């Protein structure tokens, strides 16, 4: 049982780290980013190919992957999404188009093959329990990244501005916040966070063009559960879902491991759309 809880917490770290990018993008720009999973996939392929190509430790690849992903995010917002900023339907169309584009390009490149890093980093025994290094490093990184993001959001002027825009973009404009620029920054930052997640997950998972799909629904669930744009919410939401999945997989049945959190997700979506930790009624209206 202890092992199950450990697995749940480690899995929670994975779900949290894949959700930070989404909560920033979804929370600030309010666009349903269908391309979230495929951005993660692109980041994982970058990390994999760079690490293999340069024969360097995978974790060092953060120095390259994260800036590249930041730039990719900036380009997406600046040249695609900001052109349709007031047309939610078109935004969906754009992010869905990006999903198809990324996945199909990678399918063409990889011809549907699978890639893994053979990194047996070993395990840490604690009494009768075991932790594995890959997931432990990821968990620590998830917590550290949450703290860094919080410091940034709460103690810098840009951080304040991002938070304000995420809560009400209409009000933000006329008190001097440059909404479009902040959106570009938010998408860049969100993508950079996805890049961090991608590097951390590369030693853990097998990489293929649809690998992001396994994380898409769960990260939307984490973000809804934790409240749009909330980093501590994403960390807590990731932990809750990770533990629920692990426990229900063990106690009910592995094939039903996602049912419990999925029900919770639907309940929250319908009855507390601001999330478990958000303030009810914090959703914005239009310009009136």
């Amino acid at each position, binding site marked *: 049982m202890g092992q199950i809880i450990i697995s749940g917490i480690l899995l929670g770290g*994975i779900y949290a780290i894949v959700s930070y990018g989404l909560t920033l993008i979804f929370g600030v720009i309010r666009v349903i980013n269908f391309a979230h999973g495929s951005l993660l996939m692109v980041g994982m392929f970058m990390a994999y190919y760079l690490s293999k190509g340069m024969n360097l430790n995978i974790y060092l690849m953060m120095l390259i992957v994260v800036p590249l992903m930041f730039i990719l995010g900036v380009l997406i917002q600046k040249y*695609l999404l900001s052109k*349709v900023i007031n047309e939610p339907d078109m935004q969906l169309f754009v992010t869905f188009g990006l999903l198809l584009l990324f996945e*199909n390009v990678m*399918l063409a490149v990889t011809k*549907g093959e*699978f890639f893994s890093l053979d990194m047996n980093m070993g*395990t840490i025994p604690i009494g009768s329990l075991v932790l594995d290094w890959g997931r432990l490093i990821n968990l620590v990184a998830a917590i550290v990244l949450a703290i860094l993001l919080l410091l940034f959001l709460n103690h810098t002027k840009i951080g304040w501005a991002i938070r304000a825009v995420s809560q009400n973009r209409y009000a933000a404009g006329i008190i001097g916040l440059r909404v479009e620029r902040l959106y570009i920054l938010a998408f860049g930052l969100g993508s950079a966070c996805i890049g961090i997640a991608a590097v951390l997950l590369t030693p853990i998972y097998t990489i293929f063009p649809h690998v992001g799909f396994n994380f898409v629904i769960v990260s939307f669930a984490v973000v809804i559960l934790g409240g749009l744009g909330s980093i501590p919410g994403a960390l807590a939401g990731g932990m809750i879902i*990770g533990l629920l999945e692990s426990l229900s997989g063990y106690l009910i049945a*592995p094939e039903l491991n996602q049912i419990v959190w999925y029900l919770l997700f639907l309940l929250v979506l319908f009855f507390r759309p601001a999330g478990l930790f958000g303030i009810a009624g914090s959703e914005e209206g239009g310009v009136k």
Partner: protein
Amino acid sequence: MGKIQRNVLILLLIATIFIVGCSNSASSDSDSQEIIKIGVIQPFSGPNAQAGEETYKGNELAVENINTNGGLLGKKVKLIKADATNAQEAISEAERLITKEKVDIITGTYVSGVAYPATQIANKYGVLYWETNASAPNITQQGFNNVIRIGQYGVPMATVAVNSIKDVVAPALGKSLTELKVVIVHEQSIYGTSIGEIEEEELKKLGAKVKRIPYDAASADLSSVVNLSKNENPDIWLRTGYVNDGALLFKQARDIGWKPPVIMGQADDNAYLLEALGDKGMEGILSISYPSYDMNEKYAPGIKDYLDSYRNKYGSEPKIPQTLVSYGGTEILFDLIKEAKSTDANKIREAALKMDVKIGGTYPTGYGVKLDPKTLDNTRAFPVLTQWKNGEIKTIYPPEAVGTDAKIELPLRGW
């Protein structure tokens, strides 16, 4: 939305459509009574493009072989490629093959999801659908009398798993069948479930203790499967699933430091798992595999010739075993056309139902032939059991198939 934005979007869409759809469309030749036309439906584009192409090479080599030896019924055989990656494409390509290209027979298919709709079109026109590769149960459960599956599918795959446990695995562990404890884990779609259920039933009949655990292959975490399996302390961990879930399952077992005495999987003899776990991680893992290239020439007559002609024509070693399977399946088709003296679906079915070939000793796959009269599945399309040894695949069962001095080595020792 302005003009520029619209153009960008259109560009994006076109790019997408181009990449998704860049298919090698087959060109049509003049109709001639002097040739037998066989349509080959495979995914020649998209995620399975390479596998589709490799599978097609099996047809190509078999056709070359027959044409240089005088052809069939005095005619040359000609293949016509049709690219289908999904159900819609399968339907339109099957229609095209039959109505435009006027093929006599259709064969395929690397992807079961393509085979299923394509067989329905073939059935509509009464054209023979000769299935060499797809293994999904539903393809032959439609009550069609023109769809014959000559290649391996769930029942023989499960049967070989159970037979090999009885014949070589249990003896290697020094245990009797009634002492054996087996945990079956399988992905929960029809593929994994159909195999897992047969394995459970057959092993229980033999007196083994069995627990079966289905799981979701798209899961980001399989630690509950691993922990539930470990709790049972099984002698054998028997798995059916795909590549990515297999890698995750094995890695998570490694992460908690658990390796049971025997791990056996369906088609776990692939290079992707080797990359994920390394030589050491895969060492000793058993797999129910497609007929392997190291099989004995007596069990698989013609396998040497096949390998030579593949190397000559394509300048490399065969990349996947499915090429041999489609090659062997096409040879069986040619024998039946000769026997029936026709390409008519009914006449070929009659001939096929009469065919009785024992396993090993006839075809380069080692397959025998005996159709199930209800489903028209080949009940003797038997895979082999292989074992990972120093990063290589060695056939170890059935004994007649073994082409090297490889012997089964159990129990497994650590990751």
